[in-house]
């Protein structure tokens, strides 16, 4: 069960209409290393992971949905006052034809989201290593997005998301150590 909370995890402000950045932000929305992939990956892995790690996957998976909402809010605010001509000039002409200004689950190049981005191997170490890699790739994506804009308001929200990826990666690394410790202990007697 999930309960919706009518607020963002962290404020999202943008300084201007900017369809160019809106297009790039789709990478963090429906891209291979995006927030949708992260949320679906972690929540789905929970059912086959040892009990000691289920809480972590539940909490981080839930937080990823809050991040997804932040990215959607950025896209919404960056495009809501754009003309079709501005969208087209920013490379969102085909997006406009298919979706108007609606956001959709695809990456910055327009590839639709696919479950092939994620895995649940049923092997706890394999799954957690994938999760660590996912966090590092998402962190890098946020850095490249920050590098592409001079909008300090947008940068502020993106920096928050970048830092969260660092924390998540750290926690997943700790989870690996917890499981390794457990399996060593079992072999002792």
């Amino acid at each position, binding site marked *: 069960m999930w*309960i*919706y*909370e*009518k*607020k*963002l*995890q*962290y*404020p*999202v402000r943008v300084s201007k209409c900017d369809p160019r950045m809106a297009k790039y932000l789709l990478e963090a929305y429906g891209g291979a290393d995006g927030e949708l992939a992260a949320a679906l990956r972690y929540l789905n892995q929970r059912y086959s992971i040892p009990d000691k790690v289920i*809480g*972590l996957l539940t*909490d*981080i998976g839930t*937080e990823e949905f809050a991040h997804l*909402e932040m990215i*959607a*809010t950025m896209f*919404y*605010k960056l495009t809501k006052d754009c003309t079709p001509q501005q969208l087209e000039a920013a490379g969102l002409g085909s997006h406009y034809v298919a979706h108007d200004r609606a956001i959709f689950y695809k990456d910055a190049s327009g590839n639709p989201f696919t479950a092939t981005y994620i895995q649940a191997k049923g092997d706890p170490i394999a799954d957690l290593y994938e999760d660590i890699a996912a966090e590092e790739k998402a962190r890098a994506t946020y850095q490249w997005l920050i590098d592409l804009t001079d909008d300090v308001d947008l940068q502020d929200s993106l920096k928050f998301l970048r830092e969260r990826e660092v*924390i*998540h990666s750290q*926690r997943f690394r*700790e*989870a690996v150590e*917890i499981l390794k410790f457990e399996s060593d202990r079992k072999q002792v007697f």
Partner: protein
Amino acid sequence: MKENENLKMDDNYYKCLRRLQEIDFVLLDLSIYLDTHPFDQQAVAQLNQYSQERQILYKEYEKCYGPLYEFGRSFSKYPWEWPKTPWPWQV
């Protein structure tokens, strides 16, 4: 269809919202920390203390700016308030 967008929220709204976001961030980050450090007694105490503070902040916010939660986790005035207060991307 986009009526909520014309709602002008006052400065106090953003201040109250920010305070909620701050305390909720403490609680979220502490929770995720505790998921891998379950024996950190100080962190558990800190989480419980902030959790108590949060209940007061939420009640204050909802009294001024309406329900934050669905499914009866928040009270509503008449008429039904849930769709009338702005959505997070509209403020």
